[in-house]
């Protein structure tokens, strides 16, 4: 177990290192921030001074090493635009994105699993069929389009929900959260649902497939032959088996939900990290872009690790293998 964890951490370190190179090179390919940041009427000397101030006069490899050195000390550079540490900027926006992503994932669990169970147990029922048909829409409709439709219907036509922003927030652990106020929740409803549609569809289909696959298995029939109630057979015997892939996927989806919140945050003007990164890309604020991408990579690594740990907790067969 410890060697396994150690090996995983070493692996993670290499992944992060590789990502720094890719991200750093990638950002340099997108465009030259000097053109955007420095006013066109600045003279040569001013230009040169600004370039030196941004550290862009040095060769790329040197910039990279400077970045790496900073990164080792937890400093991912200062935003060209805000002149603030990039990490702090991201940190300020993170709670907004996190609460959106967590709500979206919770929605996918709370709606996806029961609907998937139902659709798996009663595949020919009207609800089961509708859930399956709906899940195809959940997959295939583009997020931004659904978001716009939500705004059209619920904000513009019906006027039930506010269309933009986080609404009122309240402090908890020194951070401002929307989910703690009524107004904040009203603001969160549409973006969270928008963000979770794909996940709901995925969890629903996965659950249904798991149920369909497990029901004909001998262990289910044996459980029934023992005289167990249908509830116990489904919620304990079948559920424990299908939870393994579901937990894996939900965990991995959590990462991409955060990454994809870019679209939803833009549509609903939700002041989260996604909004920040889009704005930063527009002005080629390299340190923020790099810091954001590194943060996402880090997040994915942490999530993968947690999923693997959960996996071992859920599946006894995996546990044995990791011990050997």
């Amino acid at each position: 177990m410890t060697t396994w964890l150690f090996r995983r951490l070493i692996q993670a370190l290499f992944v992060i290192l590789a990502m720094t190179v890719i991200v750093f090179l990638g950002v340099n390919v997108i465009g030259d921030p000097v053109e955007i940041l420095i006013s066109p009427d600045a003279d040569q000397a001013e230009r040169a001074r600004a370039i030196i101030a941004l550290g862009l006069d040095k060769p790329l490899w040197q910039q990279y090493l400077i970045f790496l050195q900073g990164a080792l000390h937890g400093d991912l550079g200062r935003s060209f635009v805000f002149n603030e540490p990039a990490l702090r900027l991201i940190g300020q926006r993170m709670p907004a994105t996190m609460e959106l992503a967590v709500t979206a994932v919770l929605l996918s669990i709370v709606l996806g699993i029961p609907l998937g169970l139902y659709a798996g147990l009663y595949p020919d029922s009207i609800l089961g069929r509708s859930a399956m048909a709906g899940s195809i829409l959940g997959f295939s409709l583009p997020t931004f389009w659904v978001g716009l439709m939500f705004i059209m219907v619920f904000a513009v036509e019906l006027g039930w929900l506010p269309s933009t922003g986080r609404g009122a927030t309240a402090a908890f652990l020194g951070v401002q959260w929307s989910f703690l106020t009524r107004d904040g929740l009203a603001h969160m409803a549409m973006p969270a649902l928008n963000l979770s549609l794909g996940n709901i569809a995925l969890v629903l289909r996965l659950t249904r497939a798991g149920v369909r696959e497990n029901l004909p298995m001998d262990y289910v029939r044996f459980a029934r032959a023992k005289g167990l109630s249908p509830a116990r057979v489904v919620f304990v015997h079948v559920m424990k088996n299908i939870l393994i892939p579901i937990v894996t996927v939900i965990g991995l989806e959590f990462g991409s939900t955060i990454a994809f919140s870019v679209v939803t945050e833009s549509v609903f003007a939700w002041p989260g990290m996604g909004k920040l990164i889009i704005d930063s890309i527009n002005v080629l604020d390299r340190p923020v872009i790099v810091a954001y991408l590194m943060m996402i990579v880090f997040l994915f690594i942490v999530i993968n690790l947690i999923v693997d740990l959960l996996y071992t907790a859920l599946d006894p067969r995996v546990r044995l293998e990791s011990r050997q």
Partner: protein
Amino acid sequence: MSDMTLEVRNLRTHFFTRAGVVRAVEDVSFSVQRGRVLGLVGESGSGKTVTGFSIIRLVDPPGRIAGGSILFHGRDLAKLSEREMRGLRGNRIAMIFQDPMMTLNPVLRIDTQMIETVRAHAKVSHAEARARSRDALGMVGIPSPDERLESYPHQFSGGMRQRVAIAIALLHRPDLIIADEPTTALDVTIQAQILAEVQKLAANVGTALIWITHDLSVVAGLADEIAVMYAGRIVEAGDVATVLDRPSHPYTHGLIGSVPSRNKRGTRLRQIPGMTPSLLDLPEGCAFRARCAYADAACEKDPPTTEPARGHALRCFHPLLEPVA
């Protein structure tokens, strides 16, 4: 007769598939008495498993019991509500499945799977249920049962898993156990051990046993009566001596081949030339006639069940005369 545990009468279980009706069990009758062992033999696909599942009412759609009665202590199981049936399953009637690798839930510990069975039918504390589970494991010869309770199925060998399944079947000292080829997947020594133990337990507790198998040598040593199934029907049934030593049905005779000795172990069912007919829309007449050396025009009709001797049932127009060469 109060000693009659199970009496199946004219049972019919059909699968209503898209391609047509599969008559997996057609007009099957047999009975098992307290403490006795009935061997149900037949080739693959003859309907043995479906018969077993029909008795505990676990035939899933598109299959269903289409007729007949299943009298368990005189009560017709076919007429019970699902709830009443659930009270009997695992309690008064237990089943052991063919493949021990697949019957236990891979992600639940043995204790969970045993304790839930105890508590499904008896209002006892967790500790009491656990104690009963441990005793049952000990009874089927699993060493250090207390520790083994905390294992997962994958930590057991196939033979040990089948013992666990048998222990689960024994938890409530059922009146009837349906054992569906429980030893086929195991090696010969373990088979013999399990057979001996099950036989002993059945005799001690008075459990009636239906032992489904391909392996004639197993039933020869174990069963009191034998029923031979072919294409969803019982073609010959009677006590072991009658059926194995002096088979009257050409199919039974074919199965036994030229070594009818019932004490000779290792006598597998002999391959009979030809194929089992598809049970889908089976034409009228004896289902065996395409493979039968004695078939004639009379066999184009369904042979009725006759009773050439007391306790000996037969479905054939031209029974073999004794002694069989």
